């Protein structure tokens, strides 16, 4: 048994996947139970329908939506948390790296459509190509941003690189808008309809009258996200580069004394984080279908919230934080209106993340899984 625990198959494949499944199941079941409990509590306030029955009716769909968006948040949050790990600063421009990835992916698919080959290509190949292109562009953009806007500021007071990152974020938003609108004036990009992504898989559940409807999109998004998370886990925990990244995150001066090229490792960190962000952008585009240059702001902030929720600097924490936040948001969007009888609705879901962020920072600044980061923060 001990031997098996040390084997690479377990360490880099079974364990992370098991962990992901555990996190996903745990947070869905936990939140569902809380919701049902709340439904029982509020039951007597609302008279015109049975709150419990109605809550249970939409519950599976809410969980699936939450998990889908939760995996996207996790993937973006990893970019934040990796950069925070090595540099201890919030890469504010990460949300724009994410946005660029999404737009590049959609533009590639739109280009295929323009060429007239979109319908003939295998739909999974199209997605794969879009993700690969997004990874390349976003990764190199992240490295460029680091070189231009953050590298000259090493060693400056903490607020200086943060302000520079905010500036970079604003610059990228409008620069992308400028490029997109240079000739046509249109800066919204719309994902062309293709493949069978919008169709539903029907899963019959024992004990329920209607089969569970799962959109193929959701399955693909979750599948790709899990794949990337496993690859990242291998990269960070199983390779020499990963070891160097961890060393730099732990103690930069000592790492540099051990012969690690710190600024190269920082670049690699940005590359990996940017690549994940770019891929997440394509996944997000699959779900949202319409993007504009300002689309990165809210997912970026929520992903940052996820990173903090899980414990910033902690990769597993980012994964858990993303899932929990995605689920919480999905629950809030669906149930707030039902529970308050329509007084408050889904329009508050965007600020829900901030409320969570504030609560987490007050009561547990180190996050769900983080160690104490008192002086870091």
């Amino acid at each position, binding site marked *: 048994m001990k031997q098996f625990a040390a084997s690479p198959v377990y360490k880099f494949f079974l364990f992370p996947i098991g962990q992901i499944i555990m996190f996903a199941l745990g947070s869905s079941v936990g939140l569902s139970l809380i919701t049902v409990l709340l439904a029982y509590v509020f039951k007597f306030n609302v008279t015109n329908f049975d709150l419990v029955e109605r809550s249970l009716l939409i519950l599976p769909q809410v969980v699936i939506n939450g998990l889908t968006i939760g995996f996207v948040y996790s993937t973006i949050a990893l970019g934040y948390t990796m950069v925070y790990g090595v540099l201890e*600063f*919030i890469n504010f421009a990460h949300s724009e790296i994410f946005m660029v990835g999404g737009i590049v992916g959609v533009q590639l698919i739109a280009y295929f459509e323009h060429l007239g080959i979109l319908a003939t290509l295998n739909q999974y190949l199209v997605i794969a190509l879009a993700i690969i292109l997004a990874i390349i562009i976003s990764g190199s953009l992240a490295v460029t941003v680091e070189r*231009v*806007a953050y590298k*000259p*500021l090493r060693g*400056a007071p*903490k*607020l*200086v*690189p*943060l*302000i*520079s990152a*905010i*500036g*970079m*974020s*604003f*610059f*990228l*938003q*409008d*620069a992308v*808008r*400028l490029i997109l*609108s*240079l*000739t*046509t*004036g*249109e*800066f919204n990009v719309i994902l062309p309809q293709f493949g069978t992504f919008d169709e539903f898989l029907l899963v019959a559940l024992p004990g329920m009258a209607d089969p569970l409807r799962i959109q193929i999109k959701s399955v693909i998004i979750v599948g790709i996200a899990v794949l990337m998370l496993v690859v990242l886990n291998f990269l960070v925990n199983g390779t020499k580069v990963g070891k160097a990244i961890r060393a730099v995150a732990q103690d930069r001066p000592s790492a540099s004394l051990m012969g690690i090229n710190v600024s190269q490792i920082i670049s690699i960190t940005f590359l990996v984080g940017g690549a994940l962000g770019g891929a997440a952008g394509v996944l997000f585009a699959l779900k949202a279908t319409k993007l504009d240059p300002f689309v990165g*702001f809210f997912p970026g*902030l929520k992903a*940052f919230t996820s990173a*903090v929720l899980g414990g910033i600097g902690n990769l597993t924490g980012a994964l858990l934080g993303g899932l929990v936040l995605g689920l919480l948001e999905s629950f809030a969007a669906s149930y707030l209106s039902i529970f308050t009888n329509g*007084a*408050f609705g889904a*329009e*508050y879901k*965007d*600020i829900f*993340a*901030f*409320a969570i*962020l*504030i609560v987490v*920072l*007050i009561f547990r*600044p180190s996050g769900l899984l983080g160690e104490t980061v008192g002086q870091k*923060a």
Partner: protein
Amino acid sequence: MKTLFSDLYKKLNTGFWPILIVFAFLVVGSISVYLSPRSLSAFLILITTPLILYFMKINMKIKIFIGLLLIIVILPVLGIRNIFYLEVIFQMAVFAALALGLNIVVGMAGLLDLGYVAFYAVGAYAWAIFGSKQMSLLHSIPGAAPANAPFFLDPRWFWLFIFLGVGLAAFTGILLGLPVLRVKGDYLAIVTLGFGEVVRVLALNLDKPINLTNGPQGITPIQRPPLPPEAVMQVFRNLLTPLVGHPPTDAEFYNVFFYFLALVIIAIAILVATRLEDSRIGRAWTAIREDETAAIAMGIPLVKMKLAAFAAGASFAGAVGALYAANRTFVSPETFSFLQSIGVLTMVILGGLGSIPGVIFGAAAVVLLNIQVLQNFSLYLSELRQSDAVIPIINFAWKNLSNQLDPAKYQKLVFGIILVLMMIFRPSGLIPAERRKRELVEDKE
């Protein structure tokens, strides 16, 4: 290059040169604006006069005299000839006051606040809700309001609401500060950003269950405070008619009125900010900014001082918010977006963190850039678009340039570039704070 400029600056700043230069700017600027009220360059000459005045070594009394002459006589008179300039200066004053407030939080106390417009929104919505018909429309659906609803308060209540705005915003600042001041640095930045968004989303969605903010349509009309009595107005009208060329209308008087109101607020803001900077509290803020642990060790009550910074900074925004609501007679949630927060931050950074003349200059420069220079660039581009010109090397005809490409809408690009460049090349700003200068000099010895 650098020595050349400083030599020139020194040479020009001795003897009778300074006063000559200031007068030249004042006279040339005034005359050219008077003759061609629509020219941008004429206005730029006039508006740089205060800056030159600030840098030149002139007897303080003469300086104040020239400044007052410019502010009280020349600008209003020229402004009535082209109302747009009064609007520009009004905006400069509004943003300068906001920047001064943010400067207390970010520059003096070192707490990065990315949701500063939330306090501005609090002040603006306070007067907007009570100074309009909104209070009598609480139970009607937005957009379907009865036309004959009465105004809730007399317009003269506005004067009280400026102070109420100060109080409300300061209270909100403390309310936000209490929970979040436990977090530091970049976490604080994100939390305040979140708070700014929360306030905006609330303004956007509080049209139900009761219609408090009228949702995305915003609240209008909001009352303005009444002009002075007719007898006083008649004196001004007689005085101004020969200078302006036509008897000024009430609308034009309102512009002058708000211009002076903004000036009074900015004067008070400058006074408060300078007094605060040199006070015990100001020194405590500097200590916190430089080293929190050392500040605690020196016996500075950390939480109290941070809360004071938040409240003081917020109160500026509250007063300006009420002023803004009355000036526009309209508020909507879009005015209080994240972009606006970053805009104010850009002004503070551009001018110089912690530097009072710096942030005023920063505010003026950014406003000018936004609503004058970029606008003119837009006009120029649209002229190019109508011509047959072609960019030589890449062979791109200007005609093919999209109509949507309007530089005036690319504020984010401008703010972004300013922030990044300032951070890389001159993090202390264009007019650095005196205290920082002193610190730098001490370091050299």
